[in-house]
């Protein structure tokens, strides 16, 4: 555990940016596109409309009023309660993920405004061990909801996760109950919780906090569901339809309220939040 001790806690500051290469090639249409233009376009290919992957930082940028972000995450990082080791030790995995993402964990909690409305927002990052939920993510989500209660604001959670963090064993599983419990407090306080599901929102995250939104919005192209294709095929070898766990599937079967294009999400959130702010 010593490795964490001398590490910095990464408090996210969106202003500081290291500029990388100028151009990128779209993996969908093959066009060479200006990176900056892609970024300004919510990481959507200006040529073919392909959605590129969003880091948590990029997701926040694409959703909030410019310059309104303050990182209010708790200063915590993962411990290793099981001394877990698979092909490498868990602490090493954490460290590698931190290096890769410049994040302390798979989630950022921010205080932001969206179309002028102040909210507390949690945003997951799939690059950080598949956006999996361990004790840190569970605690950060609860912290975010408690901050929302303290500030009398809405809570927004943008999910991007394969489920529970296996390396934390039962502690990870129990974050499902922990986040559900605190979500109950938000409800008692009559404060809205808007859950945004992106690609992917599955497993233990979908089966807990992400499905408990007052309003559940899926980003176009999201994958939503509990058990993945592979699990089903390994367990019961059932035929699955082509649209299995797509946004359209989730909408048709009543799991979510809306499917929204990435470029419209910010405005959409402003619209929804408007109703609740007035009602308060």
């Amino acid at each position, binding site marked *: 555990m010593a490795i964490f001790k001398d590490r910095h806690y990464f408090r996210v500051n969106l202003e500081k940016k290291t500029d990388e290469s100028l151009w990128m090639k779209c993996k969908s249409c093959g066009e060479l596109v200006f990176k900056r233009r892609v970024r300004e376009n919510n990481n959507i290919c200006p040529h073919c409309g392909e959605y590129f992957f969003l880091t948590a930082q990029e997701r926040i940028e694409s959703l909030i009023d410019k310059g309104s972000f303050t990182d209010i995450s708790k200063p915590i990082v993962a411990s290793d309660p099981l001394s877990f080791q698979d092909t490498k030790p868990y602490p090493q995995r954490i460290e590698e993920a931190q290096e890769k993402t410049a994040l302390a964990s798979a989630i950022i909690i921010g205080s932001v405004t969206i179309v002028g409305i102040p909210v507390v927002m949690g945003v997951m990052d799939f690059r950080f061990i598949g956006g999996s939920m361990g004790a840190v993510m569970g605690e950060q989500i609860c912290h975010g909801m408690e901050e929302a209660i303290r500030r009398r604001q809405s809570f927004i959670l943008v999910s991007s996760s394969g489920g529970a963090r296996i390396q934390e064993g039962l502690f990870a599983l129990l974050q499902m109950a922990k986040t559900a419990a605190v979500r109950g407090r938000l409800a008692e306080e009559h404060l809205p919780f808007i859950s945004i599901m992106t690609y992917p929102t599955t497993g233990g995250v979908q089966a807990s906090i992400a499905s408990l939104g007052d309003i559940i919005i899926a980003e176009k192209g999201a994958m939503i569901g*509990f058990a993945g294709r592979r699990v089903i095929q390994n367990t019961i070898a059932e035929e699955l339809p082509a649209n299995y766990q797509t946004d359209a599937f989730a909408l048709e079967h009543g799991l979510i309220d809306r499917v929204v294009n990435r470029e419209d999400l910010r405005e959409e959130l402003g619209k929804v939040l408007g109703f609740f702010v007035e009602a308060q």
Partner: protein
Amino acid sequence: MSDERTLDLLEVKIKELRELDKTDGINLSTEIARLEKKLEALRKELYANLSDWERVKIARHPKRPYSLDYIREVFTDFYELHGDRLAGDDRALLVGLARLDDRPIVLLAQQKGRSTQENKERYFGMTRPQGYRKARRAMSLAERFSFPVISLIDTPGAYPGLESEELNIGGAIAENLLAMTNLRVPTIAVVIGEGGSGGALAIGVADRVLMLENAIYSVISPEGAATILWKEKGRMKEATAALKLTAPHLLDLKVIDEAIPEPLGGAHKDPHKTASSLKESLLRHLAEVSDIPPKKLLATRYQRYRSLGSYHTLNDQQSGSSLA
């Protein structure tokens, strides 16, 4: 070292000698007593240091007592309630009213099948959305009439499949988690066999969480973890060891409140004895939680879940730098 099968054989032989002793008037009692002592000693040696993987095998043993066995032995007057009033009746999760030493309770009990036919009907013990929503209905009933809720957990996991997804199994589990944290009655959950991930937790949020000694409770099956992390299903023994999914480990980690002892070799070696240990434990815990005033009970349960999970806190100096 002797293995389980040899000991079982020895046990059969002793039984045969006892028959001989009875029917033919030959006095073998001294020899039998000696053999029994020997058997006991060999068993203790064999089972003293069960590996985690051996416990997994016991937890999944086809002769292991299932919920209905305990329902018969631990409770009386089980009155099963069917249906979620929404879409169906899941046979892998039974709910009903019952009595524990005369006290009416609501029981939620996951049930595996023994025969092929029963396993088909019970989806190999995997709970479907209809089951979780039936459980939720039973929870509301419990709350309205102040029945404590006791859950018996025994499932490889929630049933994966198209119909489950179409009926929003993730949402069903999530709603149960929320409901159970707010349930205004005492609640006790016991993992009696397999506690398979979200499929188990969906009826497992409680004031007291217990496990039978050889039950397992895990975020993922050993096979699943081996496939995902080691990219090789066959390495489930290593995965098992890493997951700390046995009752003794989870008691050490303070995630559960008690590991209920089983007979040597596992619950199936003496289901009656196991049932009576389970009953004793349930009665004790129920008495304890029933003594807590409702408000405090809920506050304590909330705190239990709110504080769950360990992490490192960094001091301000460490968290001061910024980066993006």
